[in-house]
């Protein structure tokens, strides 16, 4: 299969490459290899709609079986690439099967960062990454009484909101002084602290964990380093992910914060691309090399290389956007705010209807919106086009941002 595309990883990015290769008119063989059983599925609903009871687990498949047959995508679930032979262009799978590639796509994703804490192996201590894990967490939530969530980032807070909506006593433990500190401004951290505490969620900041205590193999409490113990019969951990780099590293490809790729998302081996959560890529909106963990990044990087592989060479330059749903509030984010030196708000946080505009050296770099979808939508245009917006204009509700975006 010298002209075939072999995709390693059947998450959102891997699936999208396969699908987009066909819409781009690529006619050669496409093989999609995923280490989880079953059909490729979406991960966002696992911590959002599914746990909240708004979405059935059956509805998260990206496409039904018939799609793969019709599109001639050979799906190999429940298998894993264990070796890449770059000299002869073969990959070897855990099952012993070998597949030859013309082009290889590494969409290998990331795995949960685990806590090396005494008691982390106890029954009732769970992480969330897969559909099977989500199903188990939901079952355990139904039985649980005291839920402790370790990590006040997106996943931790979505889990906390879901547990709270199930009527549980919920306690979020965060090591830093505020929520979602890595990605949002203090204004939003404060807003989300209020949102969670108003629903009865308890939050501790600056937490130094000691251990997870148990009785007869089952979790019973989370203990801080100072000895304070909080009872828990379910501990949910969301402390970030680490990219899966071993396969690329063993194949001799350059890896840093992720698998290193160029503007076209190609590794130093012209036959091998890396996309999605695992790809350390030059991003024009960061002005630096970054690795981004999001659906948008997975989908748009997949489309970018599908076009290139089909013969229309593309450089990656899609605007990053993200969202998180907690309780009845959706936070919509566009752009990358890292390194911002000035923020202004548009609308009043007290009104639960506001956006935060982030500026870096007087350039608008990101917008986070709460119940102001118009700001988010126009923000995608403003940031993509590098439209000049001053902090004064951003803060002034009488300034029509749509008109600014439409101006030549």
């Amino acid at each position, binding site marked *: 299969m010298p002209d075939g595309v072999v995709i390693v990883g059947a998450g959102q990015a891997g699936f999208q490459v396969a699908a987009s290769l066909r819409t781009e008119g690529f006619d050669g063989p496409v093989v999609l290899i995923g280490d989880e059983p079953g059909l490729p599925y979406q991960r966002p609903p696992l911590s959002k709609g599914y746990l909240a009871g708004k979405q059935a687990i059956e509805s998260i498949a990206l496409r039904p079986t018939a799609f793969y047959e019709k599109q001639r995508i050979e799906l190999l679930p429940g298998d894993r690439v264990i070796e890449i032979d770059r000299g002869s262009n073969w990959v070897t799978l855990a099952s012993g099967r070998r597949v030859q590639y013309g082009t290889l796509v590494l969409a290998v994703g990331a795995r949960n960062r685990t806590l090396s804490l005494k008691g982390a192996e106890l029954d009732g201590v769970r992480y969330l990454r897969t559909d099977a894990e989500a199903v188990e967490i939901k079952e355990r939530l139904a039985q649980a009484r005291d839920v402790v969530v370790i990590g006040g980032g997106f996943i931790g807070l979505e889990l906390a909101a879901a547990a709270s909506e199930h009527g549980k006593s919920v306690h979020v433990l965060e090591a830093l002084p505020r929520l979602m500190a890595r990605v949002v401004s203090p204004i939003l951290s404060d807003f989300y602290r209020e949102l969670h505490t108003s629903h009865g969620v308890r939050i501790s900041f600056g937490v130094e964990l000691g251990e997870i205590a148990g009785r007869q193999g089952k979790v019973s409490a989370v203990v801080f380093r100072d000895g304070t113990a909080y009872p828990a019969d379910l501990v949910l951990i969301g402390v970030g992910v680490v990219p899966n780099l071993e396969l690329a590293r063993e194949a001799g490809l350059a890896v840093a914060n992720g698998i290193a790729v160029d503007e076209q998302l190609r590794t130093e081996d012209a036959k091998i691309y890396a996309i999605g959560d695992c790809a350390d890529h030059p991003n024009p909106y960061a002005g630096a090399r970054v690795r981004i963990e999001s659906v948008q990044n997975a989908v748009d990087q997949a489309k970018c290389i599908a076009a290139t592989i089909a013969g229309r060479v593309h450089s990656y330059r899609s605007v990053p*956007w993200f969202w998180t749903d907690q309780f009845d509030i959706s936070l919509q984010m566009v752009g990358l705010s890292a390194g911002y030196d000035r923020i202004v708000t548009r609308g009043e946080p007290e009104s639960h209807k506001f956006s935060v505009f982030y500026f870096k050296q007087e350039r608008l770099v990101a917008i986070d919106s709460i*119940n102001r*979808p*118009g700001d988010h939508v126009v923000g995608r245009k403003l940031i993509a086009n590098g439209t000049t917006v001053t902090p004064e204009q951003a803060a002034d509700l009488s300034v029509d941002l749509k008109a600014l975006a439409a101006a030549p």
Partner: protein
Amino acid sequence: MSLFGKKQKETAAVTYISHTGDTQQVLVPVGDSVMEGAISNGINGIVAECGGACQCATCHVYVDESFLARLNPIQENEDEMLNTTFCPRRANSRLGCQIPVTKELDGLIVRTPEAQQ
């Protein structure tokens, strides 16, 4: 097939017509969205990149006028996202993920645009 098995889930018929006129009628469980009905039945013309979170506008449909009055109203976020569709927004434009199928919508007809992205 057991007579004593679970009660069959209620469904409504939804017809999807592509921009070239290809017509497919499928039964969609009540409560699922028009987008989900398309995806689970392998209907082309709907992409649903964000999986139904109303964040991407790639499940744009033109709803047959005779059904417009029976639809749930457009919320602000959908209204804004509809301004980002790839094909032009019209008076009968909706996002498929924001239309839950109901018994009252049995027979619903939607047309998919030429492209979603």
